[in-house]
């Protein structure tokens, strides 16, 4: 072997590398794996690193331009974040909005997922498509009518007439104005995920639960949902993160960037910008603090999802 490769040294390094790869493709695969992995890690982690650089650099230095390493080590920014505005309340707002939305979405999507995944009825496919179509609507399409309703200034009328039906309550600046549209917008995805999972639970298990003494709904909560834990976790985490990071609706439905008006995380971050100053370092520090709970949630949930999938819970 050694003599053979020695004899081919005249072919040049590329040829040598090629012939070695042909004899031992594992090497190449491993090399490619590292290249790809490093590429993805760098591209996903670099924004974080950039945030840290920004947060640690004092604000006046930032305006002079920054490089790849922080110009100074201003850890105090992470404290200042809470001193300038009550950032923890903004986080709490986001957390409450995300939790409430996730609970509502999972609850409704479970019933819908049961219906679409386990029952046969005419028009099932069409109805499912309709629901999925909602998720293709740009959310901006709903903003103006929803804002109009949630301000509660004028009564809702029958279309094309002047006949007033009722005046909706004023929901603007309350969590309802955000939770309602969030739930509606994120439902289709969860329904889709849960339909797939619930549809895979063997009929025999549901039948067994019903003969043993549950109703259909009881069987859903006692057997189907526990067995679909990975799917429920997936749908829940996706919804939670989306709402936690939501900007567009919350920025409009909370009239000011004030935590008492249920302005969420993003609103809190924006409030470091005043009429005359923009504290980029506080933006960055607040962003890092805001992202931590979600990062922890993802790591925990990911373990659960993986363990749920590998436990082979559905094997009969």
């Amino acid at each position: 072997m050694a003599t053979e490769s020695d004899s081919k040294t005249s072919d040049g390094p590329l040829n040598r590398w090629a012939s070695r790869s042909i004899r031992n493709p594992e090497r190449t695969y491993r090399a490619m794996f590292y290249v790809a992995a490093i590429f993805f890690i760098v591209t996903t982690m670099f924004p974080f690193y950039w945030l840290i650089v920004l947060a640690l650099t004092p604000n006046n230095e930032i305006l002079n331009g920054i490089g790849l390493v922080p110009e100074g080590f201003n850890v105090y920014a992470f404290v200042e974040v809470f001193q300038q505005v009550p950032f923890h309340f903004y986080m709490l707002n986001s957390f409450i909005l995300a939790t409430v939305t996730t609970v509502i979405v999972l609850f409704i999507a479970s019933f819908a997922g049961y219906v679409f995944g386990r029952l046969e009825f005419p028009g099932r496919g069409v109805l499912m498509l309709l629901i999925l179509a909602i998720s293709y609507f740009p959310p901006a399409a709903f903003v103006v009518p929803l804002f109009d309703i949630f301000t509660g200034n004028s009564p809702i009328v029958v279309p094309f007439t002047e006949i007033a039906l009722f005046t909706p309550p004023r929901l603007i600046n309350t969590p309802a104005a955000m939770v309602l549209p969030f739930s509606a917008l994120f439902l289709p995805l969860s329904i889709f995920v849960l339909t797939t999972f619930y549809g895979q639970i063997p009929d025999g298990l549901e039948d067994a639960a019903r003969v043993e003494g549950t109703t259909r709904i009881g069987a859903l909560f006692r057997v189907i949902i526990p067995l679909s834990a990975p799917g429920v976790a997936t749908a829940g985490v996706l919804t939670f993160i989306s709402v936690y990071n939501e900007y567009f609706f919350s920025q409009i439905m909370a009239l000011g960037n004030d935590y008492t008006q249920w302005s969420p995380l993003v609103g809190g971050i924006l409030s470091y910008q005043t009429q005359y100053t923009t504290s980029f370092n506080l933006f960055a520090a607040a962003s890092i603090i805001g992202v931590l709970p979600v990062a922890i949630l993802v790591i925990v949930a990911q373990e659960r999802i993986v363990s749920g999938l590998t436990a082979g819970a559905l094997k009969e």
Partner: protein
Amino acid sequence: MARVKLEHVTKRYEDVTAVDDMNLDIRDGEFVCLVGPSGCGKSTTMETIAGLTLPTEGEVWIGDREVTRLPPKDRGVAMVFQNIALFPHMNVKDNISFGLRLRKYDSEEIDRRVERASDIVQLEGMLERMPDEMSGGQRQRVAIARAIVRNPDVFLMDEPLANLDAKLRVHMRTELQRLHKELETTIIYVTHDQAEAMTMSDRIAVIDSGELQQIDPPLVCYNEPANLFVAGFIGSPSMNFTTGDVTESGFTSDSFDIEFDPARMGVSPGDHVTLGVRPEDVYPVDQRESVGHPSMRIDARTDVTEPMGDEIFVYLVTQEDIEMDFEAAEAGQLLMSVSPDSDVDVDQDIQVVLDRAKIHLFDSETGDAIQHGLVNPTSRDSTTEEAEAGSDD
């Protein structure tokens, strides 16, 4: 414990009728098997009893309650499923006590009942295990324990042994019979395996194409099948059938003739009939002394033999010059079961006789049985002598 009654139960899906006007009356404490080929509607019938499927028409009674529209949980039934259907996220104890916990029994009562049920099915020391840590037989026993722990009025078993290996299946069969003796609960058992049905049940309900063909004790189904379907389905290997015509002197076909007096057997000359005889009622001619009512000799040639150990199946070709395509082979073929010490070789010319007392006549058009046993019901012996005298020379 309860009586189960189905009255004119029909289940129609969009394009098929799964169950067609089913009438069943199952007595309290009886062990009844619903048996039939796959897709015959036996499982649907069971599901209508359990309440998992609502019938399109008809009524279901359990005990003295009409339960047609009641949900499964209020019917007092317990069910064992073909795919066992243990809840994979619960351990054995939680699986067994699932129904009790739903009904809010107190924990002492639950422990006591779980203990007793697991004793009956011999699951001691396994209560903490998860279903996926158990073998198929153990899981099936958990499923049975889950069913008996609630003291249901009726047990429904949907092919509970189908997924077990052959040895375990035979073992569980006897276990189930023992269980039935012990609990004395009504058991309705669905199977496609006629041997299972024959060995376990008090009565067999044979179902085909959603229609009840016959419901009788196993031996009655075996000895006096109501129609061609039951005759062919019950018994393994299957009954021999030969289609032919009734003449003045008896039955004639391309394969063989049997002499009898048509008027006494409920047929008249010119009728198209199918003659059925089980393999064990065909004898080589040298054993005809032991046959109560031997028929005329039938010339045949041995084709293939299948030694089973306790008996030998001999495939006989009764038709001369038959084409060896499958249809024709089927028509001219007669299966004979002989004792293992018989001296039978392949491709031999042989003469056989049928036991006239065990010959069945069926109407070829409707399939209904006309006559079981071609022996004059009133004066058995005299007709046999006559027939024999005629046939021998």
